[in-house]
């Protein structure tokens, strides 16, 4: 890592300044700075991809492709927007592509046939919170299929906005920036998504 980047990371008082120094160092070919930059964001990127695509392989594809695109195009980043917004534009585009492909291929069936009988793909997803409470586990098993089926019925954009707002806690303005649309359009998307989910899963209240 370059001296400027090390100092910036060491100081730790101003996140934005740290990040700007890291980006500049990475733009000059400092791979340590690039790695640190990735590590600032990659957990939330992987979590978003995992939530949306519900497949570790697909989530890994999005992770790898997104950060390789960042690496290849970092020299074009001119600080016109935040790095977070720039990164999420890449990530959301990749996720939308994957979601659209999944819809076309109808790969989203909850159960898949295997030689050992039907296998519940969702049952393989770890749910640490539910595992701590047996009653919750039973409940989760029963309703998880329904929740996923309803999520699948949302359009890719509604799905993405819902996941980013509900599970990632991103503000609608940031979501709009990432998707290249207005805050109002993102709000409408979230509104439609919650209406559809409420209509189909009202009894979960």
């Amino acid at each position, binding site marked *: 890592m370059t001296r400027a980047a090390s100092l910036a990371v060491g100081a730790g008082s101003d996140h934005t300044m740290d990040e700007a120094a890291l980006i500049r160092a990475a733009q000059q*070919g400092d*791979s340590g700075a*690039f*790695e640190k930059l*990735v*590590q600032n964001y*990659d*957990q939330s990127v*992987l*979590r978003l991809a*995992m*939530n949306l695509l*519900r497949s*570790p*392989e697909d*989530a*890994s594809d999005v*992770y*790898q492709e997104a*950060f*390789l695109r960042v*690496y*290849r195009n970092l020299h074009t980043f001119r600080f016109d927007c935040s790095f977070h917004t720039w990164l999420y534009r890449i990530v959301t585009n990749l996720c939308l592509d994957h979601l659209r*492909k999944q819809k076309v*291929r109808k*790969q989203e069936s909850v159960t898949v046939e*295997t*030689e*050992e009988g039907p296998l519940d793909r969702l049952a393989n*997803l*770890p*749910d*640490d*919170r*539910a595992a701590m409470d047996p009653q*919750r586990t039973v409940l*989760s098993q029963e*309703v*998880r299929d329904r*929740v*996923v089926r309803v999520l699948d019925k949302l359009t890719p954009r509604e799905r993405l906005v819902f996941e980013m*707002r*509900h*599970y990632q806690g991103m*503000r*609608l303005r940031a979501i709009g920036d990432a998707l290249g649309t207005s805050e109002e359009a993102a*709000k409408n998307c*979230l*509104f439609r998504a*919650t*209406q559809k*989910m*409420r209509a189909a*899963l*009202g009894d*979960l*209240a």
Partner: protein
Amino acid sequence: MTCDTARQLLPLLLYGELAFDDEESLEQHLAICASCRTACEQESRFHANLDRFEASVPPGLLAQNRRMLMKSVALETEMKAHPPIWKRVANWLTDPPLALKPVGAMAMLALGFGIARWQPSAELLPATVGASVANPSIARVRYVSNEPSGRVKVAFDEVRPREVEGAIDDESIRKILLAAAKDPMDPGIRVESIDLLKAHTDDEDVRKALLNALQGDKNSGVRLKALEGLKPYAKDVETRRVLRQVLMVDDNPAVRARAIDLLVENREPETAGVLQELLRKSHEDEYIRARCQRALSDMKASMGTF
């Protein structure tokens, strides 16, 4: 505010995404309307219930992705520092050094003048050959003959650059892409052709081209692209046969790792055998060994052969 409007705004209230005025009006309404307050509590429970369905990231996936990413970055950096000759030549031609640009421009001008000066006049050319093909690339001369008039007649096949445009569903475009996927001269063209074709594996010819590329292409980038395209056919018998073969003979760890991923989607006994064999052979590649061990453990198969 009416009860209908209030209930529509409840989800946005819970997300903290209402405009200041709307939030004020809604809170005033909730203060005086018991049924909307109940609806708000229900909405809040529904909201909290959805939290439980967030998928967790499997342990180790983040670390594995970080390792793979940094490997790819190191590879790209290396490629950038020492690009293959064909790429260096292409870069030099498309973006020559600044000092050479005026020289290049002058050379182009001189070439233009030269060609204009030396181009044979139309009356010297045979009637059937137009001026636009005065300088053809000759693929094959079919025959030559001495005409009674004293002139010479030559029949030849000519290669000319052409540009076509169309949808990928167009049969002629697809045929060109299938040919480009086998172009031995340029791995870049092969990668891009396979990348375009891989979304159309419902076409038998495309699937065969991907299988051929996976088995025989010298470039690992092309093989990885072909693997991506074959993902939906991980259950297909022929695809699985090729994947098993690739797993044993391919020299690229990334290709082998992806082949393992596709193969273990179907837990068939042959796969366990191949993985055990691979485990026995690949002493140096820790990563592949770990992948094999994990896949075998998932399949509840033993690590060794007996």
